């Protein structure tokens, strides 16, 4: 079976033709770099995505802290991971890369902060 995929590793968006036999990738064409090959294999055999979102804060200058998983997690677990993320409240200042939740939703990946939030960086944006 031939599956058509669009590689999402970079803005080029290469059109991949992937030959699949009983759930396994046996041939890939259309990729312009090795990332495409890796993408096609995981996309067919066990699709994953890096999840990004925001978490709410309490008593900090920023109302939200943007976050991401430090590794791609199974596509099927995105909504379970979001449920966990929604419960989080950040109360202490943090730096980019600080771990907020280990092993998010049992995915093996950690949830990390992607923006610095210091105690004294000025007040958060005005409420609209």
């Amino acid at each position, binding site marked *: 079976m031939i599956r058509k*995929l*669009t*590689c*999402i*590793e*970079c*803005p080029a*968006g290469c059109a991949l033709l992937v030959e699949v036999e009983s759930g396994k990738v046996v041939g890939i064409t259309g990729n312009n770099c090795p990332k495409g090959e890796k993408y096609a294999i995981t996309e067919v055999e066990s699709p994953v*995505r*890096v*999840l*990004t*979102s*925001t978490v*709410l804060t309490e008593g900090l200058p920023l*109302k*939200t802290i*943007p*976050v*991401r998983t430090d590794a791609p997690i199974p*596509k099927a677990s*995105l*909504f379970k991971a*979001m449920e966990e993320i929604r419960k989080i409240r950040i109360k202490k200042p943090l730096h*980019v890369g600080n771990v907020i939740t280990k092993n998010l939703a049992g995915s093996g990946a950690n949830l990390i902060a*992607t*923006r*610095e939030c210091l105690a004294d*960086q*000025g*007040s*958060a*944006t005005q*409420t*609209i």
Partner: protein
Amino acid sequence: MFERELVIVGGGPAGMEAATSAHKSGVRDILLLERDQYLGGILNQCIHPGFGIEHFKEVLTGPEYADRVIKQVTSMPEIEVSLRSFAVHLTKDKVLTFMKPGILENVKAKALIMATGCRERTREMIHIPGTRPAGVFPAGLAQKLINIEGFLPGKEVVIVGSGDIGLIMARRFLLEGAKVKAVIEIQKKSRGLLRNIVQCIDDFDIPMYFSHKVSNIYGRNRVEKVSVIKVDDDFNELADSYFEIECDTVLISVGLIPENELIEMAGVEIDKKTNTPITEEVNKTSIPGLFVCGNSFKVYDIADSVSRDSAIAGELAAEYLRSLK
């Protein structure tokens, strides 16, 4: 009034890159104005990954990309960053007026770089008829409400236009528990990047209608529904294709307009169609010593390209300042 060698308006990726580039080229008196309460510009609300592949050789989110550039800026003490500073007036002699809380300042810049970015096109510009209820947002504003303010502005969403911000917001609303009922695009194909169609629309089976337009928005206080109609190659409505979608929110993702009203005020020649300066060379304008970079120079798809080209603006400003001596 005070004088500065180089004044830069806008603390997003363009203005910050221009500042560090000018510094590397030897400029030692730089004032960087930012209207928000922190540096980073629109990158702060672009929490999704995909930034930095060219510029930093790794995949970053918008805030991570901003963080790296902010740290470069703040490591250079000769770059003075002035936050909450909103530029309101500019003359041809490069006298810039800006507001800070409680004060109006005038600065005479020997060289000036405008990195003021874009604003979003609105519902009014694409002439969607109907009532004017709450719940109609430009997609980037919705992005700010969710990602910066922590506020989800709707539960059942229809997205007009398939620009990248609209596609990314489709996924964002969905992950936050809202329903995304449709993306309506009047053109035959998406104007967004392919990878965003895959990971924001196809991943979540969001219905996408090409060659369709929203013909009306209904609702008294809040959006209640929209009507949708198919169009032919000349954008004529095909009457029997009419259908309705119930929703409480309409996102408008139909492009960006470079913000160049200040340089126009100063007398720079502007192309009225694109709202960008008329010029043969990147970042230059018809006024010597006045440069424009980033999304206010032209609308870019990728932040990495903004960084690359904005570095040139910093070099051009440094070269111009040397020529005065």
